[in-house]
Protein backbone atom coordinates (compact mmCIF):
# COMPACT_ATOMS: atom_id res chain seq x y z
CA UNK A 1 0.00 0.00 0.00
CA UNK A 2 2.56 2.58 1.17
CA UNK A 3 6.22 1.91 0.72
CA UNK A 4 8.96 4.27 1.79
CA UNK A 5 12.50 3.58 0.59
CA UNK A 6 15.71 5.20 1.87
CA UNK A 7 14.03 8.45 2.78
CA UNK A 8 16.62 11.12 3.60
CA UNK A 9 15.67 14.57 4.87
CA UNK A 10 18.39 17.18 5.22
CA UNK A 11 19.01 20.62 6.57
CA UNK A 12 21.79 22.90 5.44
CA UNK A 13 23.26 23.52 2.02
CA UNK A 14 23.32 21.21 -1.00
CA UNK A 15 27.05 20.76 -0.61
CA UNK A 16 27.14 20.16 3.15
CA UNK A 17 23.80 18.58 4.03
CA UNK A 18 23.00 17.62 7.61
CA UNK A 19 20.76 14.57 7.58
CA UNK A 20 18.02 14.64 10.17
CA UNK A 21 16.37 11.59 8.63
CA UNK A 22 18.88 9.17 7.12
CA UNK A 23 17.78 6.32 4.88
CA UNK A 24 14.47 5.43 6.50
CA UNK A 25 12.54 2.57 4.89
CA UNK A 26 9.29 0.97 5.86
CA UNK A 27 6.22 -0.57 4.31
CA UNK A 28 2.58 -0.44 5.29
CA UNK A 29 0.01 -3.06 4.29
CA UNK A 30 -3.76 -2.77 3.94
CA UNK A 31 -5.46 -2.24 7.30
CA UNK A 32 -2.16 -2.41 9.11
CA UNK A 33 -1.07 -0.12 11.93
CA UNK A 34 2.63 0.61 11.97
CA UNK A 35 3.94 2.38 15.05
CA UNK A 36 6.89 4.69 14.56
CA UNK A 37 8.39 5.29 17.95
CA UNK A 38 11.31 7.35 19.22
CA UNK A 39 12.40 10.19 21.46
CA UNK A 40 11.51 13.74 20.48
CA UNK A 41 13.95 15.05 17.90
CA UNK A 42 14.73 11.62 16.48
CA UNK A 43 13.22 12.60 13.12
CA UNK A 44 9.90 10.78 13.32
CA UNK A 45 7.79 13.87 12.65
CA UNK A 46 10.10 14.96 9.82
CA UNK A 47 9.67 11.49 8.32
CA UNK A 48 5.90 11.82 8.37
CA UNK A 49 5.94 15.35 6.95
CA UNK A 50 8.33 14.25 4.20
CA UNK A 51 6.09 11.32 3.25
CA UNK A 52 3.08 13.65 3.24
CA UNK A 53 4.87 16.34 1.20
CA UNK A 54 4.39 18.92 3.94
CA UNK A 55 7.96 19.79 4.93
CA UNK A 56 7.99 23.42 6.05
CA UNK A 57 9.51 25.85 3.60
CA UNK A 58 12.09 27.26 3.87
CA UNK A 59 13.54 24.43 5.94
CA UNK A 60 14.44 20.78 5.67
CA UNK A 61 14.16 19.13 2.27
CA UNK A 62 13.72 15.60 1.00
CA UNK A 63 17.17 14.88 -0.39
CA UNK A 64 16.87 11.25 -1.42
CA UNK A 65 14.57 8.27 -1.30
CA UNK A 66 11.22 7.22 -2.72
CA UNK A 67 7.65 7.25 -1.51
CA UNK A 68 5.44 4.79 -3.34
CA UNK A 69 1.66 4.71 -2.92
CA UNK A 70 0.23 1.51 -4.40
CA UNK A 71 3.31 1.28 -6.57
CA UNK A 72 3.05 4.86 -7.88
CA UNK A 73 5.84 7.28 -7.18
CA UNK A 74 4.53 10.20 -5.13
CA UNK A 75 7.93 11.38 -3.85
CA UNK A 76 8.25 15.14 -3.47
CA UNK A 77 4.56 15.67 -4.32
CA UNK A 78 2.63 18.08 -2.11
CA UNK A 79 -0.89 16.98 -1.21
CA UNK A 80 -2.54 19.11 -3.92
CA UNK A 81 -0.16 17.71 -6.52
CA UNK A 82 -1.01 14.19 -5.38
CA UNK A 83 -4.71 14.97 -5.68
CA UNK A 84 -4.12 16.21 -9.24
CA UNK A 85 -2.14 13.07 -10.04
CA UNK A 86 -4.97 10.92 -8.66
CA UNK A 87 -3.12 9.69 -5.58
CA UNK A 88 -4.98 11.76 -3.06
CA UNK A 89 -5.97 8.97 -0.72
CA UNK A 90 -3.45 9.69 1.98
CA UNK A 91 -4.26 11.92 4.96
CA UNK A 92 -2.68 13.18 8.10
CA UNK A 93 -3.72 14.24 11.60
CA UNK A 94 -1.54 16.28 13.92
CA UNK A 95 -0.52 16.58 17.52
CA UNK A 96 -2.20 19.87 18.39
CA UNK A 97 -5.95 19.74 17.81
CA UNK A 98 -6.15 23.18 19.46
CA UNK A 99 -4.24 24.98 16.75
CA UNK A 100 -4.75 22.69 13.79
CA UNK A 101 -8.21 24.05 12.99
CA UNK A 102 -8.76 27.51 11.54
CA UNK A 103 -10.23 29.54 14.42
CA UNK A 104 -12.38 31.83 12.27
CA UNK A 105 -14.12 29.23 10.12
CA UNK A 106 -16.93 26.87 11.01
CA UNK A 107 -16.26 23.16 11.53
CA UNK A 108 -18.64 22.22 8.72
CA UNK A 109 -16.85 24.49 6.24
CA UNK A 110 -13.49 23.07 7.14
CA UNK A 111 -14.60 19.48 6.63
CA UNK A 112 -16.64 20.26 3.52
CA UNK A 113 -13.64 22.02 2.03
CA UNK A 114 -11.67 18.78 2.21
CA UNK A 115 -14.61 16.83 0.78
CA UNK A 116 -14.87 19.15 -2.22
CA UNK A 117 -11.16 18.90 -3.00
CA UNK A 118 -11.41 15.13 -3.25
CA UNK A 119 -14.89 14.55 -4.60
CA UNK A 120 -15.74 17.67 -6.56
CA UNK A 121 -19.34 17.71 -5.30
CA UNK A 122 -21.63 20.67 -4.69
CA UNK A 123 -21.36 22.72 -1.52
CA UNK A 124 -24.59 21.26 -0.13
CA UNK A 125 -23.54 17.69 -0.85
CA UNK A 126 -20.17 18.33 0.72
CA UNK A 127 -21.85 19.62 3.84
CA UNK A 128 -24.06 16.59 4.19
CA UNK A 129 -21.02 14.39 3.66
CA UNK A 130 -19.31 16.41 6.41
CA UNK A 131 -22.20 15.46 8.68
CA UNK A 132 -21.75 11.78 7.86
CA UNK A 133 -18.05 12.09 8.61
CA UNK A 134 -18.77 13.66 11.99
CA UNK A 135 -21.11 10.75 12.71
CA UNK A 136 -18.41 8.35 11.64
CA UNK A 137 -15.97 9.83 14.18
CA UNK A 138 -18.71 9.56 16.85
CA UNK A 139 -19.11 13.28 17.33
CA UNK A 140 -22.07 13.96 19.62
CA UNK A 141 -24.83 15.92 17.87
CA UNK A 142 -23.07 16.18 14.48
CA UNK A 143 -25.69 18.34 12.77
CA UNK A 144 -25.32 21.03 15.42
CA UNK A 145 -21.54 20.90 15.43
CA UNK A 146 -21.33 21.70 11.72
CA UNK A 147 -21.96 25.34 12.48
CA UNK A 148 -19.72 25.47 15.55
CA UNK A 149 -16.37 27.20 15.67
CA UNK A 150 -13.30 25.29 16.88
CA UNK A 151 -13.09 27.24 20.16
CA UNK A 152 -16.51 25.91 21.12
CA UNK A 153 -15.28 22.30 21.10
CA UNK A 154 -13.20 20.35 23.60
CA UNK A 155 -9.75 19.03 22.75
CA UNK A 156 -11.02 15.51 22.08
CA UNK A 157 -13.85 16.80 19.89
CA UNK A 158 -11.41 18.87 17.89
CA UNK A 159 -9.25 15.82 17.29
CA UNK A 160 -12.38 14.00 16.10
CA UNK A 161 -12.97 16.87 13.67
CA UNK A 162 -9.38 16.51 12.47
CA UNK A 163 -9.98 12.82 11.89
CA UNK A 164 -13.20 13.63 10.03
CA UNK A 165 -11.23 16.01 7.78
CA UNK A 166 -8.68 13.27 7.18
CA UNK A 167 -11.43 10.77 6.35
CA UNK A 168 -12.88 13.16 3.76
CA UNK A 169 -10.44 11.84 1.18
CA UNK A 170 -11.38 8.22 1.96
CA UNK A 171 -7.76 7.55 2.81
CA UNK A 172 -5.98 4.29 2.25
CA UNK A 173 -3.21 5.58 4.47
CA UNK A 174 -3.63 7.80 7.53
CA UNK A 175 -0.56 9.34 9.09
CA UNK A 176 -1.18 10.18 12.74
CA UNK A 177 1.57 12.31 14.28
CA UNK A 178 1.21 12.04 18.07
CA UNK A 179 -2.56 12.56 17.79
CA UNK A 180 -3.25 11.88 21.46
CA UNK A 181 -0.25 13.48 23.17
CA UNK A 182 -2.07 16.73 23.89
CA UNK A 183 -5.18 15.01 25.25
CA UNK A 184 -6.28 13.76 28.68
CA UNK A 185 -5.78 10.06 29.32
CA UNK A 186 -9.47 9.12 29.15
CA UNK A 187 -9.94 11.03 25.90
CA UNK A 188 -6.72 9.46 24.63
CA UNK A 189 -8.18 5.99 25.10
CA UNK A 190 -11.37 6.95 23.23
CA UNK A 191 -9.44 8.42 20.30
CA UNK A 192 -7.17 5.37 20.08
CA UNK A 193 -10.25 3.14 20.10
CA UNK A 194 -11.79 5.22 17.34
CA UNK A 195 -8.66 4.95 15.20
CA UNK A 196 -8.54 1.18 15.76
CA UNK A 197 -12.17 0.85 14.75
CA UNK A 198 -11.85 3.06 11.66
CA UNK A 199 -8.77 1.14 10.64
CA UNK A 200 -10.55 -2.18 10.51
CA UNK A 201 -13.88 -0.80 9.25
CA UNK A 202 -12.41 1.22 6.39
CA UNK A 203 -9.45 -1.09 5.77
CA UNK A 204 -7.22 1.90 6.19
CA UNK A 205 -3.52 1.64 7.00
CA UNK A 206 -2.23 3.86 9.80
CA UNK A 207 1.26 5.16 10.36
CA UNK A 208 1.10 6.01 14.05
CA UNK A 209 3.87 8.22 15.35
CA UNK A 210 4.48 8.53 19.06
CA UNK A 211 7.10 8.61 21.78
CA UNK A 212 4.85 6.55 24.04
CA UNK A 213 5.74 2.84 24.10
CA UNK A 214 2.57 2.11 26.05
CA UNK A 215 0.33 3.51 23.31
CA UNK A 216 2.28 1.56 20.71
CA UNK A 217 1.86 -1.69 22.64
CA UNK A 218 -1.93 -1.21 22.68
CA UNK A 219 -2.45 -0.10 19.12
CA UNK A 220 0.21 -1.18 16.64
CA UNK A 221 0.53 -4.36 14.60
CA UNK A 222 4.16 -3.68 13.82
CA UNK A 223 6.65 -1.24 15.32
CA UNK A 224 9.64 0.65 13.97
CA UNK A 225 11.97 2.18 16.53
CA UNK A 226 13.73 5.31 15.40
CA UNK A 227 16.93 6.77 16.79
CA UNK A 228 18.91 9.75 15.50
CA UNK A 229 17.20 9.76 12.11
CA UNK A 230 17.46 6.01 11.54
CA UNK A 231 15.16 3.07 12.07
CA UNK A 232 17.15 0.81 14.38
CA UNK A 233 14.67 -2.01 14.80
CA UNK A 234 11.44 -3.15 13.12
CA UNK A 235 9.32 -6.05 14.27
CA UNK A 236 5.83 -7.29 14.97
CA UNK A 237 4.52 -5.85 18.20
CA UNK A 238 4.74 -9.11 20.18
CA UNK A 239 8.15 -9.93 18.89
CA UNK A 240 9.47 -6.45 19.64
CA UNK A 241 8.11 -6.22 23.15
CA UNK A 242 8.76 -9.86 23.87
CA UNK A 243 12.23 -10.05 22.47
CA UNK A 244 13.85 -6.69 21.71
CA UNK A 245 17.08 -7.13 19.81
CA UNK A 246 18.49 -3.61 19.70
CA UNK A 247 20.15 -2.21 22.79
CA UNK A 248 18.27 1.07 22.36
CA UNK A 249 14.87 -0.65 22.16
CA UNK A 250 15.75 -2.59 25.25
CA UNK A 251 16.71 0.63 26.98
CA UNK A 252 13.39 2.22 26.05
CA UNK A 253 11.48 -0.72 27.50
CA UNK A 254 13.42 -0.60 30.72
CA UNK A 255 12.32 3.00 31.04
CA UNK A 256 8.64 2.06 30.81
CA UNK A 257 6.83 2.03 34.13
CA UNK A 258 4.98 -1.22 34.68
CA UNK A 259 2.40 -2.21 37.26
CA UNK A 260 4.89 -4.14 39.35
CA UNK A 261 7.74 -1.65 39.14
CA UNK A 262 6.34 0.00 42.28
CA UNK A 263 8.30 2.87 43.75
CA UNK A 264 11.53 1.66 42.17
CA UNK A 265 13.40 4.39 40.40
CA UNK A 266 13.05 3.90 36.65
CA UNK A 267 16.32 3.41 34.81
CA UNK A 268 17.31 5.89 32.13
CA UNK A 269 19.56 5.60 29.12
CA UNK A 270 22.72 7.52 29.94
CA UNK A 271 23.78 10.33 27.64
CA UNK A 272 22.10 12.30 24.89
CA UNK A 273 21.34 11.40 21.28
CA UNK A 274 24.03 12.76 18.96
CA UNK A 275 23.26 16.16 17.42
CA UNK A 276 22.49 15.95 13.69
CA UNK A 277 25.67 16.39 11.70
CA UNK A 278 27.92 14.99 14.42
CA UNK A 279 27.33 11.35 13.48
CA UNK A 280 30.56 9.76 12.28
CA UNK A 281 31.18 6.54 10.44
CA UNK A 282 30.20 4.21 13.25
CA UNK A 283 26.92 3.16 14.85
CA UNK A 284 24.70 6.11 15.85
CA UNK A 285 23.99 4.54 19.23
CA UNK A 286 27.63 3.79 20.01
CA UNK A 287 28.04 6.73 22.39
CA UNK A 288 25.23 5.49 24.67
CA UNK A 289 25.33 1.74 24.15
CA UNK A 290 26.20 -0.40 27.20
CA UNK A 291 27.50 -3.23 25.01
CA UNK A 292 29.56 -1.04 22.69
CA UNK A 293 32.69 -2.56 21.15
CA UNK A 294 35.57 -0.91 19.39
CA UNK A 295 34.36 -1.98 15.94
CA UNK A 296 30.98 -0.27 16.54
CA UNK A 297 32.67 3.13 16.51
CA UNK A 298 34.45 2.47 13.22
CA UNK A 299 31.88 1.01 10.86
CA UNK A 300 28.13 1.39 10.52
CA UNK A 301 26.31 -1.77 11.61
CA UNK A 302 24.53 -3.93 9.03
CA UNK A 303 20.76 -4.19 8.83
CA UNK A 304 19.96 -7.83 9.44
CA UNK A 305 16.73 -9.78 9.47
CA UNK A 306 17.37 -11.63 12.67
CA UNK A 307 14.08 -13.50 12.69
CA UNK A 308 11.03 -13.66 10.45
CA UNK A 309 9.85 -10.04 10.03
CA UNK A 310 12.29 -8.78 12.65
CA UNK A 311 14.99 -6.41 11.39
CA UNK A 312 17.67 -4.83 13.50
CA UNK A 313 20.42 -2.30 12.81
CA UNK A 314 23.11 -3.63 15.11
CA UNK A 315 26.34 -5.60 14.69
CA UNK A 316 25.96 -7.34 18.04
CA UNK A 317 22.22 -7.65 18.68
CA UNK A 318 20.83 -8.95 21.93
CA UNK A 319 19.91 -12.60 21.75
CA UNK A 320 16.79 -11.45 23.46
CA UNK A 321 15.73 -12.56 26.87
CA UNK A 322 12.18 -11.71 27.84
CA UNK A 323 11.92 -8.13 28.97
CA UNK A 324 11.06 -7.73 32.66
Amino acid sequence: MLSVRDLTVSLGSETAPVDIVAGVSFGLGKGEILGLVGESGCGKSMTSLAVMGLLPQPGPRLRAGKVLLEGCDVTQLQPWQRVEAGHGRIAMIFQEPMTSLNPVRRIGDQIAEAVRVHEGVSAAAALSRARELLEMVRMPDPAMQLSAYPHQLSGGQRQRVMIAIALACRPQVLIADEPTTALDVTIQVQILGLLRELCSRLEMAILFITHDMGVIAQLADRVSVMYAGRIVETAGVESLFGRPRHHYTRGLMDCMPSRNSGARRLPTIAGQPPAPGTVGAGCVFASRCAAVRESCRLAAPPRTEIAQGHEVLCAFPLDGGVAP
Partner: protein
Amino acid sequence: MWSYALKRAGTTAVTLLAASVIIFAFIHVVPGDPIYVLLGDTATPDQIDALRHQLGLDQPIIVQYVSWMGHVLEGDLGRSIFFQAPVLSVIADGAETSILLATMTMIWVAIIGVPIGMIAAVRHGTWLDQGLSGAAMLMASIPTFWVGLYLILIFAAWLGWFPSSGYPSVFEGGAVNLRYLVLPSLALAAPNAALILRLTRASMLDVSREDYVRTARAKGIRPWQVVRRHILRNALLAVVSAFGFTFAALLSEAVVTETVFALPGIGRLVVQSILRRDYPVIQGVILVIVVVYLLINLIVDLSYRLLDPRVELQ
Protein backbone atom coordinates in the same frame (compact mmCIF):
# COMPACT_ATOMS: atom_id res chain seq x y z
CA MET B 1 -19.15 41.32 23.84
CA TRP B 2 -21.40 44.02 25.30
CA SER B 3 -19.63 44.05 28.62
CA TYR B 4 -16.33 44.26 26.78
CA ALA B 5 -17.62 47.12 24.63
CA LEU B 6 -18.80 48.97 27.70
CA LYS B 7 -15.52 48.44 29.48
CA ARG B 8 -13.56 49.53 26.42
CA ALA B 9 -15.73 52.63 26.02
CA GLY B 10 -15.20 53.38 29.70
CA THR B 11 -11.40 53.27 29.31
CA THR B 12 -11.63 55.53 26.31
CA ALA B 13 -13.72 58.01 28.30
CA VAL B 14 -11.21 58.02 31.17
CA THR B 15 -8.31 58.50 28.77
CA LEU B 16 -10.20 61.30 27.07
CA LEU B 17 -10.89 62.96 30.41
CA ALA B 18 -7.20 62.78 31.37
CA ALA B 19 -6.19 64.07 27.95
CA SER B 20 -8.65 66.95 28.31
CA VAL B 21 -6.90 68.02 31.52
CA ILE B 22 -3.59 68.16 29.64
CA ILE B 23 -5.19 70.05 26.76
CA PHE B 24 -6.87 72.48 29.15
CA ALA B 25 -3.58 73.02 30.96
CA PHE B 26 -1.92 73.80 27.63
CA ILE B 27 -3.44 77.27 27.37
CA HIS B 28 -2.27 78.06 30.91
CA VAL B 29 1.36 77.06 30.42
CA VAL B 30 1.98 78.70 27.05
CA PRO B 31 4.25 81.70 27.38
CA GLY B 32 2.46 84.96 28.16
CA ASP B 33 -0.79 85.83 29.88
CA PRO B 34 -3.70 84.85 27.66
CA ILE B 35 -5.24 88.24 28.44
CA TYR B 36 -2.31 90.06 26.91
CA VAL B 37 -2.46 87.75 24.00
CA LEU B 38 -6.12 88.54 23.54
CA LEU B 39 -5.93 92.28 24.07
CA GLY B 40 -2.45 93.13 22.93
CA ASP B 41 0.10 95.28 24.77
CA THR B 42 -1.94 98.45 24.75
CA ALA B 43 -4.76 97.38 27.07
CA THR B 44 -5.48 99.39 30.20
CA PRO B 45 -5.57 97.63 33.59
CA ASP B 46 -9.35 98.18 33.72
CA GLN B 47 -9.87 96.49 30.39
CA ILE B 48 -7.66 93.63 31.54
CA ASP B 49 -9.59 93.13 34.74
CA ALA B 50 -12.89 93.31 32.94
CA LEU B 51 -11.87 90.68 30.39
CA ARG B 52 -10.28 88.52 33.06
CA HIS B 53 -13.57 88.52 34.91
CA GLN B 54 -15.57 88.03 31.75
CA LEU B 55 -13.49 84.99 30.78
CA GLY B 56 -13.63 83.64 34.30
CA LEU B 57 -9.87 83.71 34.63
CA ASP B 58 -10.15 85.10 38.16
CA GLN B 59 -11.92 81.92 39.24
CA PRO B 60 -10.10 78.96 40.84
CA ILE B 61 -8.48 76.70 38.26
CA ILE B 62 -10.87 73.80 38.93
CA VAL B 63 -13.88 76.02 38.28
CA GLN B 64 -12.22 77.23 35.09
CA TYR B 65 -11.68 73.65 33.96
CA VAL B 66 -15.27 72.66 34.65
CA SER B 67 -16.66 75.66 32.80
CA TRP B 68 -14.24 75.06 29.88
CA MET B 69 -15.33 71.45 29.77
CA GLY B 70 -18.98 72.53 29.82
CA HIS B 71 -18.39 74.79 26.84
CA VAL B 72 -16.48 72.05 24.99
CA LEU B 73 -19.34 69.62 25.49
CA GLU B 74 -21.66 72.23 23.96
CA GLY B 75 -19.33 72.47 20.99
CA ASP B 76 -17.79 75.78 22.02
CA LEU B 77 -14.02 75.48 21.73
CA GLY B 78 -13.39 79.20 22.22
CA ARG B 79 -12.64 81.94 19.71
CA SER B 80 -9.72 82.26 17.35
CA ILE B 81 -7.68 85.38 18.07
CA PHE B 82 -6.54 85.67 14.47
CA PHE B 83 -9.76 84.84 12.64
CA GLN B 84 -12.05 86.40 15.27
CA ALA B 85 -14.34 83.44 14.74
CA PRO B 86 -15.33 80.35 16.75
CA VAL B 87 -12.51 77.82 16.82
CA LEU B 88 -14.85 75.01 15.84
CA SER B 89 -15.85 76.73 12.61
CA VAL B 90 -12.21 77.50 11.81
CA ILE B 91 -11.40 73.80 12.23
CA ALA B 92 -14.46 72.78 10.24
CA ASP B 93 -13.18 74.90 7.35
CA GLY B 94 -10.02 72.80 7.25
CA ALA B 95 -11.76 69.48 7.79
CA GLU B 96 -12.82 68.92 4.18
CA THR B 97 -9.26 69.13 2.90
CA SER B 98 -7.84 67.01 5.69
CA ILE B 99 -10.43 64.26 5.47
CA LEU B 100 -10.25 64.05 1.68
CA LEU B 101 -6.46 64.03 1.83
CA ALA B 102 -6.42 61.27 4.44
CA THR B 103 -8.97 59.23 2.48
CA MET B 104 -7.08 59.55 -0.78
CA THR B 105 -3.86 58.63 1.04
CA MET B 106 -5.48 55.53 2.49
CA ILE B 107 -6.58 54.48 -0.98
CA TRP B 108 -2.97 54.65 -2.17
CA VAL B 109 -1.81 52.85 0.95
CA ALA B 110 -4.34 50.08 0.34
CA ILE B 111 -3.58 49.59 -3.33
CA ILE B 112 0.19 49.81 -2.90
CA GLY B 113 0.83 48.36 0.54
CA VAL B 114 -1.49 45.37 0.78
CA PRO B 115 -0.90 43.61 -2.59
CA ILE B 116 2.86 44.14 -2.52
CA GLY B 117 3.01 42.93 1.07
CA MET B 118 1.08 39.84 -0.03
CA ILE B 119 3.47 39.19 -2.89
CA ALA B 120 6.47 39.54 -0.58
CA ALA B 121 4.94 37.08 1.88
CA VAL B 122 4.01 34.52 -0.77
CA ARG B 123 7.53 34.76 -2.21
CA HIS B 124 9.02 34.66 1.29
CA GLY B 125 12.79 34.24 1.35
CA THR B 126 13.34 34.93 -2.35
CA TRP B 127 15.25 37.87 -3.81
CA LEU B 128 11.88 39.43 -4.70
CA ASP B 129 10.81 39.39 -1.06
CA GLN B 130 14.13 40.82 0.08
CA GLY B 131 13.97 43.52 -2.58
CA LEU B 132 10.40 44.52 -1.74
CA SER B 133 11.04 44.52 2.01
CA GLY B 134 14.19 46.58 1.52
CA ALA B 135 12.30 49.03 -0.68
CA ALA B 136 9.62 49.32 1.99
CA MET B 137 12.19 50.14 4.62
CA LEU B 138 13.71 52.72 2.32
CA MET B 139 10.28 54.30 1.76
CA ALA B 140 9.73 54.49 5.50
CA SER B 141 13.06 56.33 5.84
CA ILE B 142 12.23 59.17 3.44
CA PRO B 143 10.79 62.39 4.90
CA THR B 144 7.35 63.03 3.40
CA PHE B 145 8.14 66.65 2.68
CA TRP B 146 11.18 65.65 0.65
CA VAL B 147 9.06 63.29 -1.44
CA GLY B 148 6.53 66.10 -1.70
CA LEU B 149 9.09 68.61 -2.96
CA TYR B 150 10.34 66.14 -5.57
CA LEU B 151 6.80 65.36 -6.69
CA ILE B 152 6.24 69.10 -7.11
CA LEU B 153 9.50 69.45 -9.01
CA ILE B 154 8.81 66.56 -11.40
CA PHE B 155 5.04 66.39 -11.86
CA ALA B 156 4.12 70.03 -11.32
CA ALA B 157 7.12 72.13 -12.36
CA TRP B 158 8.63 70.00 -15.12
CA LEU B 159 5.79 67.90 -16.50
CA GLY B 160 2.90 70.13 -15.45
CA TRP B 161 0.55 67.21 -14.93
CA PHE B 162 -0.74 68.23 -11.53
CA PRO B 163 -1.08 71.55 -9.68
CA SER B 164 1.68 72.16 -7.14
CA SER B 165 -0.26 73.81 -4.36
CA GLY B 166 -3.59 74.84 -2.89
CA TYR B 167 -6.92 73.10 -2.98
CA PRO B 168 -10.20 74.67 -4.12
CA SER B 169 -13.14 72.81 -2.62
CA VAL B 170 -14.75 70.04 -4.64
CA PHE B 171 -18.08 71.52 -3.59
CA GLU B 172 -17.28 74.59 -5.64
CA GLY B 173 -15.20 73.29 -8.51
CA GLY B 174 -16.40 69.70 -8.74
CA ALA B 175 -14.52 66.44 -8.43
CA VAL B 176 -11.89 67.64 -10.87
CA ASN B 177 -10.39 69.57 -7.96
CA LEU B 178 -9.33 66.27 -6.46
CA ARG B 179 -6.30 66.53 -8.75
CA TYR B 180 -4.92 69.07 -6.30
CA LEU B 181 -4.69 66.28 -3.76
CA VAL B 182 -2.98 63.68 -5.95
CA LEU B 183 0.61 64.72 -5.28
CA PRO B 184 0.19 65.43 -1.55
CA SER B 185 -1.63 62.17 -0.97
CA LEU B 186 1.11 60.26 -2.80
CA ALA B 187 3.78 61.91 -0.67
CA LEU B 188 1.87 61.11 2.48
CA ALA B 189 1.17 57.57 1.31
CA ALA B 190 4.82 56.63 0.81
CA PRO B 191 5.85 55.92 4.42
CA ASN B 192 2.41 54.65 5.42
CA ALA B 193 2.21 52.25 2.48
CA ALA B 194 5.63 51.00 3.54
CA LEU B 195 4.37 50.30 7.06
CA ILE B 196 1.24 48.56 5.81
CA LEU B 197 3.35 46.55 3.37
CA ARG B 198 5.58 45.34 6.18
CA LEU B 199 2.61 44.63 8.40
CA THR B 200 0.77 42.69 5.68
CA ARG B 201 3.87 40.65 4.96
CA ALA B 202 4.61 39.98 8.63
CA SER B 203 1.08 38.98 9.53
CA MET B 204 0.71 36.74 6.48
CA LEU B 205 3.96 35.01 7.42
CA ASP B 206 2.74 34.66 11.00
CA VAL B 207 -0.50 33.09 9.85
CA SER B 208 1.18 30.83 7.29
CA ARG B 209 3.20 29.28 10.10
CA GLU B 210 0.00 28.33 11.93
CA ASP B 211 -0.85 24.68 12.30
CA TYR B 212 -4.23 25.15 10.64
CA VAL B 213 -2.55 26.26 7.44
CA ARG B 214 -0.65 22.98 7.44
CA THR B 215 -3.99 21.21 7.94
CA ALA B 216 -5.36 23.07 4.94
CA ARG B 217 -2.40 22.03 2.84
CA ALA B 218 -2.77 18.44 4.04
CA LYS B 219 -6.34 18.47 2.69
CA GLY B 220 -4.90 18.87 -0.79
CA ILE B 221 -6.01 22.43 -1.41
CA ARG B 222 -4.02 24.28 -4.07
CA PRO B 223 -1.43 26.73 -2.72
CA TRP B 224 -3.15 29.91 -3.87
CA GLN B 225 -6.46 28.66 -2.50
CA VAL B 226 -4.73 28.06 0.83
CA VAL B 227 -3.55 31.65 0.72
CA ARG B 228 -6.97 32.97 -0.22
CA ARG B 229 -9.15 30.94 2.12
CA HIS B 230 -6.94 30.39 5.14
CA ILE B 231 -4.06 32.87 5.26
CA LEU B 232 -5.43 36.06 3.75
CA ARG B 233 -8.60 36.42 5.75
CA ASN B 234 -6.91 35.83 9.08
CA ALA B 235 -3.93 38.02 8.21
CA LEU B 236 -6.04 40.90 6.90
CA LEU B 237 -7.90 41.17 10.19
CA ALA B 238 -4.73 42.64 11.68
CA VAL B 239 -4.06 44.79 8.61
CA VAL B 240 -7.56 46.25 8.51
CA SER B 241 -7.29 47.33 12.13
CA ALA B 242 -3.97 49.01 11.33
CA PHE B 243 -5.85 50.92 8.62
CA GLY B 244 -8.01 52.58 11.25
CA PHE B 245 -5.04 53.68 13.31
CA THR B 246 -3.20 54.92 10.23
CA PHE B 247 -6.19 57.00 9.13
CA ALA B 248 -6.43 58.58 12.57
CA ALA B 249 -2.69 59.29 12.67
CA LEU B 250 -2.79 60.78 9.16
CA LEU B 251 -4.91 63.70 10.34
CA SER B 252 -1.93 65.02 12.26
CA GLU B 253 0.88 63.52 10.19
CA ALA B 254 -0.39 65.65 7.35
CA VAL B 255 0.94 68.78 9.10
CA VAL B 256 4.15 68.90 7.07
CA THR B 257 2.63 67.74 3.80
CA GLU B 258 -0.14 70.31 3.98
CA THR B 259 2.50 72.96 4.55
CA VAL B 260 4.56 71.85 1.54
CA PHE B 261 1.54 71.86 -0.76
CA ALA B 262 -0.11 74.89 0.86
CA LEU B 263 -3.31 72.94 1.45
CA PRO B 264 -5.97 74.66 3.57
CA GLY B 265 -6.28 71.69 5.96
CA ILE B 266 -6.13 71.23 9.69
CA GLY B 267 -2.41 70.49 9.62
CA ARG B 268 -1.41 73.76 8.05
CA LEU B 269 -3.87 75.50 10.35
CA VAL B 270 -1.86 74.19 13.32
CA VAL B 271 1.46 75.39 11.92
CA GLN B 272 0.09 78.82 11.01
CA SER B 273 -1.60 79.15 14.37
CA ILE B 274 1.69 78.36 16.09
CA LEU B 275 3.43 81.09 14.12
CA ARG B 276 0.52 83.50 14.83
CA ARG B 277 0.37 82.50 18.52
CA ASP B 278 -3.32 81.76 18.03
CA TYR B 279 -3.40 79.47 21.06
CA PRO B 280 -7.15 78.74 21.22
CA VAL B 281 -6.98 77.30 17.70
CA ILE B 282 -4.00 75.07 18.56
CA GLN B 283 -5.80 73.88 21.66
CA GLY B 284 -8.97 73.20 19.69
CA VAL B 285 -7.18 71.27 16.96
CA ILE B 286 -5.31 69.11 19.47
CA LEU B 287 -8.59 68.37 21.25
CA VAL B 288 -10.43 67.47 18.05
CA ILE B 289 -7.61 65.25 16.76
CA VAL B 290 -7.25 63.43 20.08
CA VAL B 291 -11.00 62.81 20.23
CA VAL B 292 -11.10 61.52 16.65
CA TYR B 293 -7.98 59.41 17.26
CA LEU B 294 -9.42 57.77 20.37
CA LEU B 295 -12.84 57.22 18.79
CA ILE B 296 -11.37 55.58 15.70
CA ASN B 297 -9.25 53.38 17.95
CA LEU B 298 -12.34 52.38 19.88
CA ILE B 299 -14.36 51.62 16.75
CA VAL B 300 -11.53 49.64 15.16
CA ASP B 301 -10.96 47.63 18.30
CA LEU B 302 -14.64 46.77 18.71
CA SER B 303 -15.23 45.90 15.07
CA TYR B 304 -12.08 43.78 15.08
CA ARG B 305 -13.63 41.77 17.87
CA LEU B 306 -16.97 41.57 16.10
CA LEU B 307 -15.24 39.93 13.16
CA ASP B 308 -13.56 37.33 15.33
CA PRO B 309 -15.94 34.46 16.17
CA ARG B 310 -13.89 33.53 19.24
CA VAL B 311 -15.29 36.53 21.08
CA GLU B 312 -18.89 35.30 21.02
CA LEU B 313 -18.45 33.29 24.17
CA GLN B 314 -17.17 36.10 26.34
